[in-house]
């Protein structure tokens, strides 16, 4: 984890914005938009010009362009990883469009009334009525920063957060308004060359959320972002950066949905968390992107790099994820337990149905003394779903008294699915205590019959058994997410039995 921090040296490379735009305009534009919302997008393909164009479009400072270019060059020298237990056709990175933005962004809406009604309509279809949500959120203390395609279009509750000193905004805005913070922390947890997809993200990231909670502040509300992929063939490259200074606390919720599509869509996000002394970050995800149909056609490729750095003493980072969507999930939210007495947690429910594939887990890197980590992973496979838990627990030489407890359970529904467990443990300090428990079970016919003999129908019985199996993870989710997660599992498992 001691790899390069991002190099923040400003470069002298000029940003010939108009020049590149002219260049791009000479190319043939992809025909036809997916929705009626006019999108501004460039032709598919990736080269240095495209990276420069993205940076220019966003009017970024030179140090950020330099960051992108370094990442791009590194990415070019890297190979797509193939070690995960997943299969998919080769991804043509030159067929992907790396920039699109709803046009209405040109005049940033000052309130929801100014938001493109088509956008609001789309959210409604997704069951996320923004207006109601704003009202509800006012009651429930949830602020929503909506990412539509590549650019954030609506940000609410900024006022209340600002009063507390919390910054919660699109990362592109943070680059403009708080460059010193972004510059200091961006790429400091996930270096630009960390892995193939992280390098790609660092080169072309579109937008994402930025959260900064200053010293001693407990964020007055839970922060939530809804992501949605709308554009055909537009890879999404979110970049999220959350920083909690000494004694600060925040709980961040991320939820995603996507409409039906016939084409695979690439998603390669990077999330970086930084917790300083005694700070606490809780990051919860409910991921429900389009998983593809029963035959495995379509669906999102979700190749995500999420990492938290417990940089300060007695800091704590907790990941909770419910992964029910995507055709392929490749995701290992990790914690670097650098500060003495720091704590890392990973609670995961992953469900694969039909032809879905998931290779997911975590990494807990114990660097500091008396660092503790907990891993609870619940994998559910149904249909022809394939699932792998892949987890690394590494205890370094100086991590005196480090402790880890891993519990990894798999539940199989039907006889055509698969569950695999790949635990890696490396312990270089003799005082460390590392425990690993794993079970694999099937929903037994006698369990189903027991429920049915009490009057509970088969689908409800499966859903109940699965929710029971996931209980240890769901109890870590914020209440409203726990309810949503249970519903999601139920919907995702429809037709899994019988």
């Amino acid at each position, binding site marked *: 984890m001691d790899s390069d921090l991002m190099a923040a040296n400003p470069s002298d490379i000029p940003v010939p914005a108009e020049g590149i735009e002219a260049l791009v305009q000479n190319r043939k534009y992809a025909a036809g938009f997916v929705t009626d919302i006019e999108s501004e997008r460039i032709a598919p393909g990736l080269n240095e010009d495209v990276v420069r164009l993205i940076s220019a479009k966003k009017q970024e400072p030179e140090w950020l362009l330099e960051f992108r270019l370094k990442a791009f060059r590194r990415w070019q020298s890297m190979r797509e990883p193939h070690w995960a237990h997943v299969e998919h056709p080769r991804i043509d990175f030159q067929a992907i469009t790396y920039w699109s933005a709803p046009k209405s962004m040109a005049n940033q809406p000052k309130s929801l009334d100014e938001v493109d009604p088509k956008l609001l309509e789309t959210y409604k279809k997704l069951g996320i009525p923004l207006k109601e949500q704003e009202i509800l959120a006012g009651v429930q203390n949830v602020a929503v920063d909506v990412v539509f395609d590549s650019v954030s279009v609506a940000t609410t509750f900024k006022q209340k957060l600002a009063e507390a000193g919390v910054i919660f905004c699109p990362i592109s805005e943070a680059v403009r308004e708080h460059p010193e913070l972004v510059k200091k922390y961006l790429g400091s947890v996930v270096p630009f060359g960390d892995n193939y997809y992280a390098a790609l993200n660092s080169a072309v990231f579109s937008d994402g959320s930025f959260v900064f909670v200053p010293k001693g502040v407990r964020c007055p509300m839970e922060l939530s972002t809804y992501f949605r992929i709308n554009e055909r063939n537009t890879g999404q490259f979110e970049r999220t950066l959350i920083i909690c200074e000494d004694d600060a606390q925040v709980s961040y919720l991320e939820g995603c949905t996507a409409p039906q599509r016939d084409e695979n869509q690439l998603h390669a996000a990077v999330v970086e968390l930084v917790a300083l002394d005694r700070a606490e970050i809780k990051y919860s995800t409910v991921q429900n992107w389009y998983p593809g149909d029963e035959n495995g056609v379509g669906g999102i490729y979700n190749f995500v790099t999420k990492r938290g750095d417990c940089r300060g003493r007695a800091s704590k980072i907790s990941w909770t994820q419910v992964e029910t969507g995507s055709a392929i999930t490749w995701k290992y939210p990790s914690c670097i337990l650098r500060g003495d007495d720091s704590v890392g947690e990973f609670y995961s429910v992953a469900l694969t149905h039909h032809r879905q594939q998931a290779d997911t887990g975590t990494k807990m890197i114990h660097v500091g003394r008396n660092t503790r980590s907990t891993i609870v992973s619940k994998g559910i496979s149904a249909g022809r779903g394939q699932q792998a838990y892949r987890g690394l627990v590494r205890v370094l030489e100086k991590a005196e008294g480090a402790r880890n407890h891993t519990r990894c359970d798999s539940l199989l529904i039907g006889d055509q699915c698969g569950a695999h467990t790949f635990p890696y443990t490396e312990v270089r300090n003799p005082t460390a205590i590392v425990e690993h428990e794993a079970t694999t079970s099937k929903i037994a016919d006698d369990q189903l019959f027991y429920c*049915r003999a009490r009057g509970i129908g088969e689908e409800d019985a499966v859903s*109940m058994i699965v929710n*029971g199996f996931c209980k240890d993870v769901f109890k870590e989710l914020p209440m409203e997410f726990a309810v949503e997660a249970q519903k999601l599992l139920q919907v995702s498992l429809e037709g899994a039995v019988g």
Partner: protein
Amino acid sequence: MSQLLQIENLHAEVAGKEILKGLDLVVNAGEVHAIMGPNGAGKSTLSKVLAGAEDYVVTAGTIRYQGRDLAELSAEQRAAHGIFMGFQYPVEIPGVSNMMFLKAALNAQRKERGEPELDAGDFLAWVRHRVKQMKMDPAMLSRGVNQGFSGGEKKRNEILQMLVLEPRLMVLDETDSGLDIDALKIVADGINAMRSPERATILVTHYQRLLDHVQPDAVHVLAAGRIVKSGGPDLARELEEKGYGWLQQAA
């Protein structure tokens, strides 16, 4: 007295093997019937067939319940129509609390019958006093269904479920096995509490001792897939003394 259950010439097989071979039985509302018999005679098969387990296939004969052909009803519909099977080996469902399970079961049944579902408060009141009746620790309601329960606790939990669901026909498959004397008494009290002119009970058991606490109206001996002898409570005592050998030879 109205007939609640009529079984005629019932043949049933499991995994291709015929277990029930022409079983006849009539149970009237208000009655308690004990079915006794040696291992492998088909006692548990009869319970499973009545409850609607799909791996038990009826190959001939009919079962009429409340005048209706039982074959028309799925397991969950049978439950909603008042058939309750007490399991010989109750199943564990980790992470699903007893409370949640009972509420889901009761409300699923009520919904099937077109009755309004109970809300959390009403349900709690409904359950609490029955938990007390079974002399169970209310804390068990928040534990997983049968999760880590002892054999006796599981059986007691079956009877609790029965009290909560208030069925019409209770088929209790060796509910007395694995119970100590105190637990047996509590379970028997639970069964007796459910006795009423509208309800009937079928007790599948190996032993006389449950019948000391729950007085049956009729005792049947099931051997080699058929009822080979029927009688009153005295038959159970006779079996206790003589065993089943003499009847099996007769069959």
